[in-house]
């Protein structure tokens, strides 16, 4: 059955960009439960109620795939608090909004081959299948470099309460996004990692307080929320309090990086491997140098609906139908950009 999922669902957006153009800009990512948002319970409440009802009926096994995956981990109903949102149809609360600062670019250059290109006669004499002259080499090095960096500026959702106050560590209702942050002081760049033991500033002879830094985790945030209370009719759930922020943020992670079109074909005569980016035989080799793809990889929480047991488990279904809106505002050395749901290949 399910279980912890090392590979979530991935929704990617590809932006075609010429090489060696420095750009930077804000990247908005909005993800929300989407099924018209008018007749669905919020995901936490609905799934909790499903577990409750099937547990009572003794039929929990019928929903074992998603129940055994994060965040439910095949726990009994007692693990999950009833938030009392049945019949409130608040699936709109299951959203995640992230703002990144993306900068950089990518250099692309033709691979550097080792030695001279093989001739047709040499290829034939050595027993290679593809004897195309001038395209096969004994070695190849690709020195194209992705210089893309990104920083999560802020994240908004209604789910940070699972981690902050519920105390149900078993229920992994929130997934933090790691924020790489290094801070400098008069001494220099420090490199303390938040995954290591926190610095004990109180210990005599301990670390200097202003020396800190490392990989900080950006948990689900809610800043400056103000509840207008039930008296106004604007909602009886006070989202300014942590224990009410128990909705289902759908985003597990976001990665932003650059990649280029490269496929190095190989053939061997049983002893020596040869490399090419332009063979006439298949599989085709290629290495495009006129553009690269900026990849915005939005990882959505899901479960393995087709898991048959054993080995790792990859998510293949979201817990609910979602809608993703991505908005990128690059400023810099090019306006020659094209966005797509699939990788640009030409």
């Amino acid at each position: 059955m399910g279980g912890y999922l090392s590979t979530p669902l991935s929704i990617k957006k590809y932006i075609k960009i010429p090489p060696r153009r420095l750009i930077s800009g804000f990247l908005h990512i909005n993800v929300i439960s989407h099924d018209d948002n008018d007749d669905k319970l919020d995901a936490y409440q609905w799934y909790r109620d499903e577990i409750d009802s099937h547990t009572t009926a003794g039929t929990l096994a019928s929903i074992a795939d998603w129940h055994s995956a994060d965040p439910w981990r095949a726990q009994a109903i007692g693990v999950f608090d009833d938030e009392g949102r049945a019949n409130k149809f608040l699936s709109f609360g299951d959203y995640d909004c992230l703002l990144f600062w993306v900068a950089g670019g990518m250099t692309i250059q033709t691979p550097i081959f080792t030695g001279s290109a093989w001739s047709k006669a040499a290829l034939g004499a050595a027993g290679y299948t593809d004897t195309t002259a001038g395209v096969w080499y004994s070695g190849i090095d690709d020195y194209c470099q992705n210089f893309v960096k990104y920083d999560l500026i802020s994240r908004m959702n209604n789910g940070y309460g699972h981690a902050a106050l519920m105390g149900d560590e078993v229920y992994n209702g929130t997934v933090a996004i790691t924020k790489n942050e290094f801070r400098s002081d008069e001494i220099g760049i420090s490199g303390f990692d938040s995954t290591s033991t926190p610095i004990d500033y109180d210990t005599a002879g301990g670390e200097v307080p202003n020396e800190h830094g490392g990989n900080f985790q950006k948990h689900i945030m809610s800043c400056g929320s103000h509840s207008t209370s039930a008296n106004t009719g604007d909602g009886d759930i006070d989202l300014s309090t942590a224990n009410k922020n128990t909705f289902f943020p759908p985003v597990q992670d976001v990665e932003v990086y650059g990649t280029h079109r490269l496929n190095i074909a190989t053939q061997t005569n049983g002893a020596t491997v040869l490399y090419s980016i332009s063979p006439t035989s298949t599989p085709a080799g290629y290495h495009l140098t006129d553009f690269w793809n900026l990849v915005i990889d939005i990882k959505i929480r899901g479960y393995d609906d087709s898991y048959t047991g054993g080995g790792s488990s990859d998510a293949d279904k979201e817990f609910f139908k979602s809608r993703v809106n991505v908005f990128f505002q690059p400023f810099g050395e090019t306006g020659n950009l094209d966005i797509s749901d699939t990788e640009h290949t030409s």
Partner: protein
Amino acid sequence: MALTREERKLLHQKSQQPTFGSGKPDSREGSDGDISFRKVEGSGTVQYLKENNDWTAISSTGEMPVMRIGGGSSGGGSSGVSNHASLSGLESDDHDIYLLIDGSRAMTGDLSLGGGDGALTFTVAGENSIKIPDNQASALIIEEANTAYLTFVTTNSGEKMQFHKALDIDAVSDFGSNSMTNVNIDSGAIDGTAIGASSQAAGDFTAIGAVAAGTIVGTTIDATTDFTIDGLVLTADTITNDAALTVDVAGDIILDANSGVTKFYLAGDTNDYASLTVAANGVTTLATFDDGGTVGHLTLDADGDIILDAAGDDIYFKDAGSERFRMDLDDTPTLAATGALTIHGSSTMTLDATSDFIAKTNTREVIKANTSSNIYFHAYAQTLFNDYYINISASNRHLTSGVSDFQQNYSWLGKHSVSTAYNTSFGT
């Protein structure tokens, strides 16, 4: 007023003047004692005396029977001279009631001739004449009853002959070498078939004119060479003029060419010209022809508007036969251009629509501006609480702004997607 024939006859009778006539007089005419000279065939001129209500022949110019003595009894037995040659004293002429054959005695009354072929015959060789009095408005009238046919007017300085009836000349008239001058046709018309059609002669009319507006009516005016009016010359195939030529008609001016082509030349240049070509169904082409094929421009220069009114909806503008503009003139007019279109203004260019202004590419709306100054790009169709002043319907590539590659580029890119693999049982 002249006396009628009957009045003159009565006057003769009442004045005991002999009467004249032909044949024996009727017994109902005259009174006893009247004398009448009658021309009787076979007897010559016979002198009749009416007595006892009947006319008695008493002498004649022919062979006479025994002379009767008027007033005598028919039963008397006296005798007399019966042979005219036996008469004496014939030369004494002691009765001036007779005409003398030498014409020395003028007639005092009207002369009535019996008529017939040669009733009045001149026999003298040489000149013969009838003389009429001078300075008379009606010196001589030839008339039927009182209807004049020909009047000779001898009024001083106004001498003339007046024809009061149609003049029918049924033979070729020849004025010889004499000029026919001062012919005044002051009414009516010259009507005929052709002047010079049947008998042509060399020579020219020096002028055909009128002191006032007149008319020449006919069927055919046929000149063997040219008609020339001042500088205007009409030849068999050409009309030329040495000055401006005005064609001024009260009705239509109709040019009817079987080829349908009417050409307009400049100073006889037949290589560079304009033509007006009419084909079947009135299909018309106004064209210019330049021998060089480049500068045969056509200009429509109107002090007022130039109106092109096509019932067929379309007006075309072509370049050497290739359509460039088509103006569709139905109730939603369209200006269609074939080829790249540039609207060039040397100063401010304004496109002013009283309703929406819409710019399209390949029938697809790209820009629309409404009368509230809202601008919509790419058929923006969302219904908003209130329209923005700039509205863009865009997908993926929303906006870009920049100077050039490597300089000041700012872009907006967006992407929307909906998950396809999810728990379809969720929320049910």
